[in-house]
């Protein structure tokens, strides 16, 4: 009996040690994970940071002479400091921070591009679904889509007699084509089997559109939306330069007229970063919505 109890305590004593060991390895693993994350961040951030610093140095050197026509980065920093440091100031109707101006432009893009997305998907579905709609509409689309955004502006100003709806229309008409064309391709590529499933179930047009067509064509639709939102951001800046108002585009035009070159450069940075974010936003939405659909 006594021997047995000794054995028991021995047996009990053993599992304690491995438990300690596990605790140590867990800590070690966590540290390695942190290191790995830091390493990944470094590989993602260091190269672009180096390139940007190099570009700034080259720019500074190139524009440092007194006869240079463009301001060097140091001058931009000094003269446009309040624009860089305080994006959200608000000192009255025409004196507001750049973030406000970007938001106003984004609001226009949201309305114009939102309409383009809805109408574009609907028209794309029609063109993709019906052979006759494609034969009739596709040539028209192919011609109209090559018209540059600003070429539409005089016509829309004449039609709407107001700058804000004109700007919205320019965004709409610029961004709708890739949405239509990509949706049509996606709808045309819906496998025949999915259509047969829908026919056997006797899905009506609306059910087919919502339950089969949109999810099946979603990867294509989002490709179109991504191109479309890039184009609409291009168009809004150009349209605002001509129509006025308080958007970021008009700010650039205004700064040019009062020879504030550093302000223009800061505005360009804002536009670029915003456009990049928009693109990533639509891409992320697409990746989220179409998860699992691409794999067969």
């Amino acid at each position: 009996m006594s021997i047995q109890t000794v054995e028991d305590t021995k047996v009990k004593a053993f599992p304690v040690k491995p438990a300690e060991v596990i605790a140590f390895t867990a800590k070690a693993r966590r540290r390695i994970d942190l290191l790995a994350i830091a390493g990944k961040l470094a590989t993602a951030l260091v190269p672009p940071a180096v390139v940007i610093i190099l570009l700034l140095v080259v720019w500074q050197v190139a524009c440092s002479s007194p006869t240079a026509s463009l301001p060097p980065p140091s001058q931009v920093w000094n003269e446009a400091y309040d624009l860089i440091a305080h994006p959200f100031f608000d000192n009255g109707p025409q004196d507001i921070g750049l973030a406000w101006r970007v938001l106003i432009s984004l609001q226009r893009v949201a309305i114009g591009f939102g309409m383009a997305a809805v109408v574009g998907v609907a028209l794309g579905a029609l063109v993709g679904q019906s052979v006759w709609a494609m034969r009739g509409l596709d040539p028209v689309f192919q011609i109209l889509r090559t018209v540059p955004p600003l070429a539409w502006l005089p016509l829309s100003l004449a039609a709407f007699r107001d700058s804000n709806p004109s700007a919205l229309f320019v965004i709409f008409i610029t961004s709708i084509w890739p949405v239509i064309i990509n949706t049509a391709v996606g709808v045309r590529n819906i496998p025949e089997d999915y259509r047969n499933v829908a026919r056997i179930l006797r899905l009506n047009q609306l059910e087919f559109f919502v339950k089969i067509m949109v999810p099946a064509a979603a990867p294509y639709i989002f490709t179109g939306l991504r191109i479309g939102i890039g184009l609409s951001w291009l168009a809004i800046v150009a349209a605002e330069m001509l129509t006025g108002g308080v958007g970021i585009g008009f700010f650039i035009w205004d700064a040019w007229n009062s020879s504030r070159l550093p302000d223009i450069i800061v505005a360009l940075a804002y536009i670029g970063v915003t456009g990049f974010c928009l693109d990533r936003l639509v891409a992320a939405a697409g990746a989220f919505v179409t998860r699992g659909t691409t794999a067969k």
Partner: protein
Amino acid sequence: MTAYLKLDHIDKSFARGGQVSEVLKDIRLTIDRGEFVSIIGHSGCGKSTLLNLIAGLTRVSSGAVLLEDKEVDSPGPERAVVFQNHSLLPWLTVYENINLAVSKVFGRTKSRAERHEWIMRNLDLVQMAHARDKRPAEISGGMKQRVGIARALAMQPKILLLDEPFGALDALTRAHLQDAVMDIHARLGTTMIMITHDVDEAVLLSDRIVMMTNGPAATIGEVLSVPLARPRRRIELASDRTFLRCREAVLKFLYERHRFVEAAE
């Protein structure tokens, strides 16, 4: 007694660019309720076209498909199809795929709870209840086909049409699924029509085997009854006289009298 399903002098031809090609000619066949009929023939003989005609996915050129004396002119859930490549919607889970069919077919007649129970019962029938929340991409080919069968059965069809349902599967999975289909046929008594090019499969599963001649203008060459008692077990049948005789009859039809001439295509 009138037949459950009647194929009445069916012709089918396709017109393409002014050229008319005759695919099926003078198909006459009656199928009784609860029967399991296989249609076998070489590739290109129009057996898939014949199945599509019964499903209503394609229209007949002349003649008629009659189900319970009513003419079939469009697809519908009472003639559910199990497709060769399963055709599950990849953005829906297994459960949602079947729910799409069930809510469309029984949306008005069954309550939400009844529909849920009905979906789960059909998933149980093909032993796939454990994978209800998986997407088609996450399950194997055999499992996808099981779900495809469950979706078709969930429509509570008068006739289940199987278009080479096991063609894309490996031999072992195929055997499992054949057993599953035999089991379902025995339990539910659903009338089934299966397209196949596998002689053993046809003899094992069928009450009758419809043998098609080669195209163009293919027709039914011969109909063989398989007088084997059910339930059938593949291991016992491997040395069964009747099984071997049926198998030989189909093989002789396919490879002696109606040999497939590749060059003719």
